């Protein structure tokens, strides 16, 4: 038996229910399903899906390889462009990327299931531990990568393949970055993020040093002095504050911490959740927090977003997913004050909003939603420290198309750079391309004395 008792409690559900709730969101395709799904691909010329993929995976080719009984070759086609193709297959908002571009949408409003097919092929290759890449002869160059997230891992892998030695520094205990800490549990079951990290690192030549934070344990200058190049693939460690009354009450929490804790929990029964939960925000983080709060047994979960449905960063698919799990999404509501009782959250008062000449304003009316837990998912910030004279703009690192920063020997990619897309797959593309740029820079620089000798 579970409980609907008020307050923030763990164990709201019987154990088996947690397991059922946090199972794979989409079951993997079996062989038959994969063949049927693959049959639908038209093998388009200069395929729109491929153009829509930030990592430019040759989608028609990998699907044809599945259709012709060559899932291993298919996986290589995927990994050639995106070494984290397994995770991207699980977390990419395909409905706004490759699958949105699929010509089958025009034909019959139902795209080829590209994401699930990608998972099918990559799962087989990873299950069989097929290693497609071996390292080029050791170049003698050493590169420091800061952040073991998607950008850092993709960069490190490509550098290792090119023969360079890589040391990755990460502030947390595990590698993976958001793949490990920032994705809803039902999207990466069975410890997939760690299995993928192992798969990526098995190429060799990559050393990971955990618990090391830039700005605390070393500076960019230190790295630039010690290594031949540095890649910054940091995540967004800061969280935007509400700046309203009651924000510090017990029960007001950051959604990202909640999501991270869920991922690190084995049973989920130990993750406390309120009976009535309000999530503030309109992006994927808000959806992930709200859906999982519901799955943990919260009786009422409400997402409040200060603009309209069409302005939400969360995709249509994600919004529908939330609705299907019983989350209500309310629009045009902006937090005004958190009601506190005995130091704990009792509810939230919100202003109704509207757009006036394109500017968001409050209408003067307010509403109150009773809540015992409030999650903030109103955006994250890059907490830069130890970066020295590195050029920043709007709180992010400025890079060129290849990922070069304002400093020689320093490249950057992923969420920490200006113009990032807040997507795993974009981070992978930036990390990969920066590795290519670093490798080219090495090639034109003076050969190492040791290499000459």
């Amino acid at each position, binding site marked *: 038996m579970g409980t609907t008792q008020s307050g923030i409690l763990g164990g709201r559900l019987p154990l088996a229910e947690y397991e059922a709730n946090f199972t794979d969101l989409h079951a993997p395709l079996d062989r038959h399903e994969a*063949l*049927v799904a693959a*049959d639908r691909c*038209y*093998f*388009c*010329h*200069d*395929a*729109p899906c491929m153009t829509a993929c930030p990592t430019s995976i040759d989608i028609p080719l990998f699907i044809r390889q599945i259709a012709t009984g060559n899932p291993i070759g298919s996986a290589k086609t995927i990994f050639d462009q995106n070494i984290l193709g397994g995770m991207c297959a699980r977390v990419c908002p395909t409905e706004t990327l490759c699958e949105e571009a699929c*010509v*089958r949408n*025009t*034909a019959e409003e139902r795209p080829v299931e590209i994401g699930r097919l990608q998972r099918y092929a990559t799962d087989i290759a990873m299950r069989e531990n097929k290693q497609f890449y071996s390292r080029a002869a050791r170049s003698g160059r050493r590169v420091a990568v800061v952040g073991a997230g998607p950008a850092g891992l993709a960069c490190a892998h490509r550098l290792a393949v090119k023969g360079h030695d890589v040391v990755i520094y990460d502030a947390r205990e595990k590698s993976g970055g958001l793949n490990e800490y920032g994705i809803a549990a039902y999207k990466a079951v069975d410890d997939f993020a760690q299995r993928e990290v192992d798969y990526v690192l098995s190429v060799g030549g990559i050393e990971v040093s955990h618990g090391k934070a830039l700005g605390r344990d070393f500076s960019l200058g230190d790295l630039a002095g010690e290594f031949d190049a540095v890649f910054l693939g940091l995540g967004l460690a800061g969280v935007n504050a509400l700046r309203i009354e009651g924000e510090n009450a017990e029960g007001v929490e950051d959604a990202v911490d909640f999501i991270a804790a869920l991922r690190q929990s084995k049973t989920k029964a130990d993750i406390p959740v309120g009976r009535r939960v309000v999530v503030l925000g309109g992006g994927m983080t808000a959806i992930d927090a709200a859906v999982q709060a519901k799955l943990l047994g919260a009786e009422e979960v409400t997402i409040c977003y200060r603009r309209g449905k069409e302005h939400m960063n969360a995709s249509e698919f994600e919004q529908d997913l939330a609705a299907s799990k019983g989350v209500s999404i309310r629009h045009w509501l902006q937090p005004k004050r958190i009601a506190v009782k005995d130091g704990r959250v009792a509810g939230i008062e919100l202003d109704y909003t509207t757009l006036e000449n394109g500017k968001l304003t409050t209408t003067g009316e307010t509403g109150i939603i009773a809540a015992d837990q409030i999650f903030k998912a109103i955006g994250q910030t890059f907490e830069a420290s130890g970066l020295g004279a590195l050029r920043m703009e709007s709180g992010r690192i400025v890079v060129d198309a290849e990922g070069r920063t304002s400093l020689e020997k320093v490249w950057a990619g992923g969420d920490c750079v200006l113009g990032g897309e807040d997507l795993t797959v974009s981070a992978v593309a930036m990390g990969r391309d920066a590795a290519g740029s670093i490798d080219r820079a090495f090639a034109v620089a003076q050969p190492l004395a040791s290499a000459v000798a």
Partner: protein
Amino acid sequence: MADLRNNFVGIKSPNPFWLASAPPTDKAYNVERAFRAGWGGVVWKTLGEEGPPVVNVNGPRYGAIWGADRRLLGFNNIELITDRDLYVNLREMKQVKMNWPDRALIASIMVPCEENAWKAILPLVEETGADGIELNFGCPHGMSERGMGSAVGQVPEYIEMVVRWCKQYTRMPVITKLTPNITDIRKPARAAKAGGTDAVSLINTINSITGVNLDTFSPEPSIDGRGSHGGYCGPAVKPIALNMVAEIARDPETYGLPISGIGGVTTWRDAAEFMALGAGNVQVCTAAMTYGFKIVQEMITGLSDWMDAKGHRTLDDISGRAVPNVTDWQYLNLNYVAKAKIDQDACIKCGRCHIACEDTSHQAITQFVNGVRHFEVIEEECVGCNLCVNVCPVENCITMEPLAAGTLDRRTGKPVDPDYANWTTHANNPMARQAAE
């Protein structure tokens, strides 16, 4: 309502859909089910001579190739003629015919190429009340190694001889089933006619290996690691069969010889096409073996509804209607000009027309117009080859539009000539020049 009643060389059936001599017609149980489902007739699976029946392999008899979504496109078999006792078959045939007097029941026969063998079996078959016989000169596997089946069908003289015996020893109509495993189908058809056959039926199956197992390197279907060529049939053979039917239908020597069309008939459309090319009815096997007997309901309603829509009242109204339009290449109108046209509203922008034309043909379809993905025919380059139509996944998205006489053909820079002109009189034809001198 169109009248689908069929009268084929005097054999009457309520519709023109017969089941071909094959596994579905091997015994009363199946044939009864077929008649209940609505089939107009059956050609009972081939009977052999009296004595110990043939034996079949005890492993895979069938092989196949598939299209998208594992749709069966081509099918082959290494099964022999009936492996049941002759008298069991005869008894069942008699009973079934008594149960279903309005349906056609034809006996397929294959006995050695000896007069006595045919003389012996024909009265036994006649006694069942069967409506006719079909001479199996087609089976390309197994029986042919014993001097029967296609071994007979490949020698016009043998065909003529056996047909003559049959006409001599039975009053039943004789349908001669032809093998496609020859170079010119007209030769065996002419021989059958010379022997006095009432009709021909075609095609029988085509020599084939459906695939090779890449683990064992055995051909498919595989029997203990080895394979033998089998008889190919199903949708994939339809174009071959249509051509052979048409060749016989338009051959002056066999013109008017009744034809029972066989080869990949899967839908009512296929049946209508065979009949348009001269077949009096059709025989079906693979479609039934793929989907069961119920498909005949689609065939009956489809044919009937199409005939109603087009105002055709009886099967005679459609039979042979396309035959006058089958000609030799040299008589095709070289002044006819068509251009591909892409319906932009139907286009899903897959780009296959472009890449097919660009890589393999005439560079006549754009990929971008003003920087936007847009597929459009470049009339200056389009030769009207139809490749884009065939590779487009959307039906009727690309169509071939004939240019009216007098319109400018932007490829040649000349107006379309209103007059018919063919190769026989073309300036580039050395034979034509010679004739002109």
